[in-house]
């Protein structure tokens, strides 16, 4: 059976992709319709974060049902560090593009969403790499 850490990574990955992916679909539609005030996205974002917390909590309850959590060991830590280190490039890239966008006076709503998307993609890459390392070895 898979470890709790691996099940938790699956729960986080699926939750982030579905909930925050849903946020970006709706936000993308709003942006394409010309909604440029950042404050207009706040209720959607807050709802997304609350929904994410609920889905994560429920997902982890299900994960515990399949086996109680064990304490982290050296392999979990190494996998976490490696995945984190590799995924940080995504965030770095997003921040650099964001700064470039600010230089060219791109609307703040686009910059904010680019940075948020970078954070989301970083987590998706990190969790995906963790799952690969758990399956194929580190």
């Amino acid at each position, binding site marked *: 059976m*898979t*470890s709790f850490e*691996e099940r938790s990574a699956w729960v986080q990955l699926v939750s982030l992709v579905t909930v925050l992916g849903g946020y970006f679909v709706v936000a993308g539609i709003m942006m394409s319709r010309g909604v440029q005030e950042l404050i207009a996205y706040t209720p959607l974002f807050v709802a997304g974060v609350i929904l994410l917390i609920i889905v994560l909590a429920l997902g982890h309850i299900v994960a515990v049902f399949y086996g109680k959590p*064990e*304490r982290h*060991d*050296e*392999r*979990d830590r190494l996998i976490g560090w490696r995945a984190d280190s590799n995924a940080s490039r995504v965030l770095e890239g997003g921040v650099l593009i964001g700064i470039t966008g600010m230089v060219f006076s791109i609307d703040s709503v686009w910059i904010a969403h680019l940075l948020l998307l970078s954070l989301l993609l970083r987590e998706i890459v990190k969790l995906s790499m963790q799952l690969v390392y*758990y399956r*194929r*070895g*580190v």
Partner: protein
Amino acid sequence: MAKEKTRIQNQIKTLRFHQGEMTQQDLADQIGVTRQTVNAIEGGKYSPSLEVAFRIAQVFGKPLDEVFQYVVVTK
């Protein structure tokens, strides 16, 4: 000069068998890691730290080089 391809192999599965068919969980509990980590070490998917390697050797009462071998992979 071309770099030689090497890998770390181990005799943990055999040693567990000779230790009264010790389970992976039993070994994991004794060395302070998860069963999945013992499984990954046995399968060559994870090379443990020196400390864990020494703990494994200690459980079996064997020197480290009887548990782990650093081998050159021949094609």
